[in-house]
């Protein structure tokens, strides 16, 4: 090992690419991190990646190949799985009559060469390439096969857990029967049926609110810093993969790179995969122009299948080499020590903990009223609700970003469902259903809150649609699920995921009843008890949510926002509008992904 170290170091020294002081420093880092010397030089910006590989190729007597200019050879056509090739660090790039040319991102010794030939079934000629080029090449070469893998493998592996088909025939039958019975009842006895519906809706609304209050109260008992395991030494830190799916995000690329560069983690243990849709030339160009650091790799997401974030993430999962993995969005600004904190938490957690969710909040909260309300909502959700769910060991629907996974376990779970438009929430529930746990951590990622109402409604309708999808997916076998996770956790799932869209759908009708019952009660033919129940329930529910939002704003230190919680009922009105759009989309375009624009803050 030392010989290798010295050989690479001496070669770079001989080539005049490093000084002896830099070599000494790098060796110290290597002692501390136990990572490869070449990675240390490249990722600490001492040596350019290409220069390193030139020296490596020369020292080992192989040729360096530029894979960006090579024709793509589909590994599937040779019976090779790109996932394995990504892990092994080589790929075929030229098929000749007598041999197949293979590019490797590391030095290949005799036994490995033999292994490659056995896999391919033909003699090979080995070339050297950078790991950066190799990953990009594999994504390009695997093309449609990779797209299919990212899009359909989950549905093929776990058809019962996929939202590819949102409702099963049995679920549709139940829905139709319910609709017919309700319609018949309305025709027969309109006001009595309506009263019953109001009662049911009110109960669901109230149950959802009570659950939120309970979870928030539990979360209030936990302080973020109550349990903060000791940060690990660099040598003990695991390798980390950061996935950043990007689509039409050119405008925020520079900020994104700056935010990711600010992450405090040994660069040689960090890889950042920028997942760019192949047709998104603009974003790719912006990334290249921004000269990303050596820790970042651009991976093209091949077209085909649903054009969704989870699909891009699944592509990233193929190439991720880290022991831990996290998703960040384009506009994210994670707290610099977040990865270290999460690594420490994973280190002391049981193996059943497969995901750690960081808190989300907004850096543009002061932009307008909408961003302020959004901030209050997130403060409640991430600082209280999720803390409470964690405390109570209940299922946690993940937030869209800053969810950290054990990579191996994530692969076991099948990655993300690309047909679910809240793939994160679905994954959290799925993890719970399979007996795993999600924890939350007191580190925050700051995002950009949607500041335009139209865009907000679109984004929110996608989230609500995703919750509807998730509810349908996980209630396909309700008894089985309840037996597996326990009745309490099953009820929590229902109240959290299924009741949320229902509550939003109920807001507008309850508002209407509330207003009419106060000002012109005579036009309502509803029984008095139904009006009272609806009104009291609605009033109490809104009051509770206002109060929780108020306290949440306070806890976050957003003192100037707390009082705005009184506007929560109006904010909920926007949610309600979004929920009807979500319902319509669930029927008409169930897998359509409403893209949220960033960079307008």
């Amino acid at each position, binding site marked *: 090992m030392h010989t290798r170290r010295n050989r690479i170091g001496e070669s770079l020294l001989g080539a005049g690419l490093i000084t002896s002081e830099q070599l000494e420093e790098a060796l110290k880092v290597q002692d501390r991190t136990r990572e490869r010397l070449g990675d240390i030089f490249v990722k600490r910006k001492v040596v350019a990646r290409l220069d390193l590989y030139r020296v490596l190729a020369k020292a080992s007597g192989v040729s360096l190949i530029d894979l960006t200019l090579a024709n793509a050879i589909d590994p599937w056509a040779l019976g090779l799985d790109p996932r394995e090739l990504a892990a092994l660090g080589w790929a075929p790039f030229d098929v000749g009559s007598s041999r197949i040319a293979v590019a490797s991102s590391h030095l290949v010794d005799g036994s490995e060469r033999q292994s490659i030939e056995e896999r391919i079934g033909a003699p090979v000629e080995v070339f050297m390439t950078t790991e950066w080029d190799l990953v990009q090449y594999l994504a390009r070469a695997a093309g449609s096969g990779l797209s299919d893998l990212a899009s359909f493998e989950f549905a093929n592996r776990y058809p019962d857990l996929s939202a590819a088909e949102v409702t099963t025939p049995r679920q549709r039958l139940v829905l139709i029967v319910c609709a017919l019975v309700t319609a018949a009842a309305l025709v027969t006895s309109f006001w009595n049926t309506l009263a019953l519906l109001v009662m049911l809706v009110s109960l669901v609304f109230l149950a959802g609110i009570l659950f939120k209050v309970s979870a*928030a*109260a539990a979360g*209030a*008992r936990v*302080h973020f810093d109550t349990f903060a395991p000791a940060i690990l030494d660099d040598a003990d830190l695991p390798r980390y993969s950061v996935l950043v799916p990007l689509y039409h995000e050119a405008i925020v690329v520079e900020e994104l790179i700056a935010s990711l560069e600010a992450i405090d983690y040994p660069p040689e243990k960090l890889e950042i995969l920028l997942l760019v849709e192949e047709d998104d030339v603009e974003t790719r160009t912006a990334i290249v122009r921004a000269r990303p650091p050596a820790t970042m790799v651009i991976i093209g997401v091949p077209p085909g299948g649903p054009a969704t974030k989870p699909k891009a993430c699944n592509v990233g999962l193929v190439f991720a080499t880290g022991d831990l993995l996290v998703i960040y969005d384009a506009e994210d600004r994670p707290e610099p020590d977040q990865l270290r904190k999460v690594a420490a938490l994973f280190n002391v957690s049981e193996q059943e903990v497969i995901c750690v969710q960081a808190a989300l909040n907004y850096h543009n909260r002061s932009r307008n009223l909408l961003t302020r309300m959004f901030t209050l909502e997130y403060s409640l959700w991430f600082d*209280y609700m999720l803390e409470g769910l964690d405390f109570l060991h209940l299922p946690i629907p993940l937030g869209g970003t800053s969810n950290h996974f054990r990579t191996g376990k994530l692969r076991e779970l099948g990655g993300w469902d690309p047909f679910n438009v809240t793939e994160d929430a679905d994954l959290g529930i799925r993890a719970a259903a399979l007996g795993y746990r999600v924890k939350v951590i007191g580190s925050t990622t700051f995002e950009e809150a949607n500041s335009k109402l139209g865009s907000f409604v679109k984004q929110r309708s996608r989230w609500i649609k995703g919750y509807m999808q998730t509810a349908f997916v996980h209630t396909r076998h309700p008894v089985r699920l309840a037996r597996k996770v326990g009745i309490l956790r099953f009820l929590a799932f229902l109240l959290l995921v299924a009741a949320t869209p229902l509550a939003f759908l109920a807001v507008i009708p309850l508002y209407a009843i509330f207003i009419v*019952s*106060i*000002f*012109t*009660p*005579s036009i309502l033919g509803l029984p008095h008890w139904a009006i*009272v129940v609806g*009104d*009291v329930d609605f*009033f*109490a529910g809104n*009051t509770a949510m*206002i*109060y*929780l939002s*108020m*306290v949440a*704003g*306070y*806890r976050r*230190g957003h*003192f*100037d926002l*707390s*009082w705005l919680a009184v506007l929560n009922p109006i904010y909920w009105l926007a949610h309600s509008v979004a929920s009807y759009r979500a319902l319509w989309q669930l029927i008409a375009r169930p897998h359509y992904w409403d893209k949220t624009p960033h960079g307008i803050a």
Partner: protein
Amino acid sequence: MIATYFQQKRVPFRLIALVVALGAVEAVARFDFNRTLVGSVFDLPLGTGSLLLETFSPVLVAAALLSIDRLCRLRGLNLLQRILVAAALSATALAGYLSTDPLAVWAFVALAAMGVAALAKFSLELEEISGLGAGLAALGLCVLVPQAVWVVGAWAVVLGAVVARSRGLSAGVSFALVLCFPVVAAALGMVGVVAHDRGTGEASVLLGQMVDAVTRLRLGTPGLAEIAAVALALAAAWLPGRSFGYFRSSFVGTAIVVGAALAGFELGAVGLLASTVAGTVVAFALSSRKSAWPMIVLLYLQVSILAILQLHVFV
């Protein structure tokens, strides 16, 4: 000694809380429902709903005691907090007594305990969620005892001011808002119910009815007891922050209690006055010790005796 015994024997405070809370049942059962916010809204005859109150009130009191228990478990109570505990319990006992509702004694104590727990927790960890507990307690309390609105308001001002001193004005205002909101919401809700019950659909009539409802809720006039509670709480919160020193603070605090009680001198007030002054002085003296236990136990006993006396002698 009592505290030491409890600590050494590890007598569960929760059990004590439960036993004492059950003692409140009798008071609740005899409670005049028409004097409550609920009663004033719904015009319920005496005794109606007492079952609900019998269930709810002990829970409230137990919650209060558990809060004190929690307070004791918190480390590092400073002088200000210890004085606040003493002042709060004395003031609320006074307020509860003078408002002549047996339940009020218990209810005010519950509120004060919640508030103190909130402040102690807040000061130690800058953890505002205790405001949630205090707020919710205040909500329940004000539904039961309308006069508590004034005490809640006082506590909101006091705690808000304390918070503002350490974290800035906006934090203080925000904290006060958090504390007050449930009460305001409850009041609005009740007003809404009254207005709704009488609603004819005309906005002007509705508005008139809302005003009427507010009047009926008796939120408009703070009584002497409430003023005394507010004054003492304010003094207790602010005086130690000045250069008064410990003994002078306690004297001033006691003087306020005495003054307030004298101003409202009426049947039974002498006993109350003596007890309160004694309790306050003892509490102040004990508050110099490291443990808050003796002070809390003594004050609690004091309040309990007052409540029982009021229940069995004066009612």
